[in-house]
């Protein structure tokens, strides 16, 4: 599913260069549930952005679903994001102006499927157990509920890959548990490939594999 080879990412910082990733090689199989751990500034978010085609590496090659994507145009990257990747963010990133259902539909708009958007959105909302909150604005929902809406938005288009960047980071432990159980059950029931950044070792141990990152390199991997 994901094959990173010698990936490096360098950001220009004035006249110096900031080396965020230095030679990452990682393979993630279809249907795997992987946790990425590491201290802040280790480059794990940058790696997740690269995997999610939000950014392209400075060097190295990246195959997603068998296709080399590290040199694609922004147009093609947007298309891949729309069709193959669902994002779940630490800060939920829902649009406050739109209802829960409309937020989920937004996730379908750019996926190319046009016909049954409302039905698919409703289906996703039911999967995260919030079908009674369809017309609520994000501000009327609790943090845990907002994150469930965000998960519904990510999975509504049935993407093969879901990327979560500290999905429980802004939640209390109780809501966090709930979110993790939703994500793990989605993985178990639908075989979605799930890559998740987390700081929490307990959460990481729900995954099949933990990748530890430090200073832009893979420090070690452990099987759970």
């Amino acid at each position, binding site marked *: 599913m994901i094959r990173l080879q010698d990936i490096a990412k360098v950001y220009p910082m004035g006249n110096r260069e900031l080396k965020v990733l230095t030679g990452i090689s990682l393979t993630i199989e279809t249907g795997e549930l992987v946790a990425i751990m590491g201290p802040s500034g280790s480059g794990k978010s940058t790696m997740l*952005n690269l995997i999610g085609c939000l950014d392209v590496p400075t060097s190295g090659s990246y195959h997603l679903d068998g296709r080399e994507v590290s040199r694609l145009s922004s*147009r093609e990257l947007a298309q891949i*994001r729309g069709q193959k990747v669902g994002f779940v963010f630490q800060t939920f*990133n829902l*649009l406050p102006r739109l209802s829960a259902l409309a937020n989920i539909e937004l996730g379908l*708009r*750019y*996926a190319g499927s046009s016909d049954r958007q409302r039905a698919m959105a409703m289906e996703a909302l039911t999967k995260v157990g919030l079908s009674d909150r369809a017309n609520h604005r994000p501000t009327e929902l609790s943090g845990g509920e907002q994150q469930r809406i965000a998960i519904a938005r990510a999975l509504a288009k049935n993407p093969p890959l879901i990327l979560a960047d500290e999905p429980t980071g802004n939640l209390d432990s109780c809501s966090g548990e709930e979110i993790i159980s939703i994500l793990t059950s989605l993985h178990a029931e639908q075989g979605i490939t799930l890559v998740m950044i987390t700081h929490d070792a307990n959460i990481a141990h729900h995954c099949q594999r933990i990748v530890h990152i430090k200073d832009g390199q893979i420090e070690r991997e452990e099987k759970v």
Partner: protein
Amino acid sequence: MKKWFEPFSTAWVGVASHKLRSSLTILGIVIGIAAVISLMSIGKGAETDILSRIETLGSDLITIRPGASVGFGGVRSAAGSAVTLTMEDAEAIAQQVPYISSVAPLYSSNLQLVAGNKNMNSQVTGTTPEYMQTNNLNILSGSFFSDYDYQRGAKVAVLGSNVKETLFGDTDPIGQQMRMGSTIVRVIGILESKGAMWGSPDDAIFIPLTAMQQTVAQPRTAKGERVVSSISLTVSDKEKANYVVGEITSLLRSRHNLGPSADNDFTVTSMEEIASTLSETMATMTIFLGAIAAISLLVGGIGVMNIMLVSVLERTREIGILKALGAQERDIWTQFLIEAAFLTLAGGIIGVIVGWIVSFIVSSMGLMTTVVTADIVILAVCVSAGIGLFFGFYPAWSASRLNPIEALRHE
């Protein structure tokens, strides 16, 4: 869910979620468009007003006056003072120039008019019965003098509306006697008012030319021809007015024995020519007014751009989210562009209505005639949408080019 509709509904949500800000932006465009509409309608109104007044004077009228001309609008050197036009010129024109329906020579003089205990000075015009036709006069009551009156030199007079008002007030003057210089005349008709304007017959009094000759000595030229003050004539076909002017000019030049290098000693003016010059001037005026109003439209457009830039900045994170969800640059771009066009189009439509109301008020208060034409309205609406696209372009473009990662990190 239809795909084409989505950007429009999204744009609507964007506009509606900042009601005050959106309405102020729209207001800028409303003022601009309303100013364009009302000023141009005033310009257009003045244009049609002047043209219709000329129409009432007779747009097929051609006037010949003695004296040279420096062209319409220039200084007419001593026009009217020379004694070069004669009855015989008028007769020759009637006989020899084609496309003429009637010719009326006239000789006028300022005389004192007395009726009862009222008196006034006015221009008395001796002419032929054709004058009524050439100068498009309408009789309010009584009648104009007839060919028979003309032939026998009957001492009958037709009064302009102001003259009648001054001398007779509200009493009916038809059949009454009045004194004109040293001659007693009988009033037989009153003219309809044509409104205050240059050349208006309201202040004039008309009598048969033959009667005029008995009242005031009509001078004669060296050849013994009877001098007239001017000659009015109408063409049978307005299209031929310029041709007729040319024919009259060459006829009169040969009759007056003018050599090839000599200037004309008369001036031929066709109403058609005056009308077209005036309407050109007014059209320039209208464009000028519109251009001034367009400046406020420009300011409104810059306001739209300003607000769109603020909006893009404020929604940076939203743009990042949309990009993460797979939105193409084109999607972002169209969304903001539609939003800008939406603001200006709404402003344009409201502006048209406001401008329409303003020009309606102006004309109903009697300040000025205004005309709102369909082309101005269509132009204004298209221009306002165009302003949205033009001034929305840069903000929309900058939104579409945002880096998704940086946009997502934006607070």
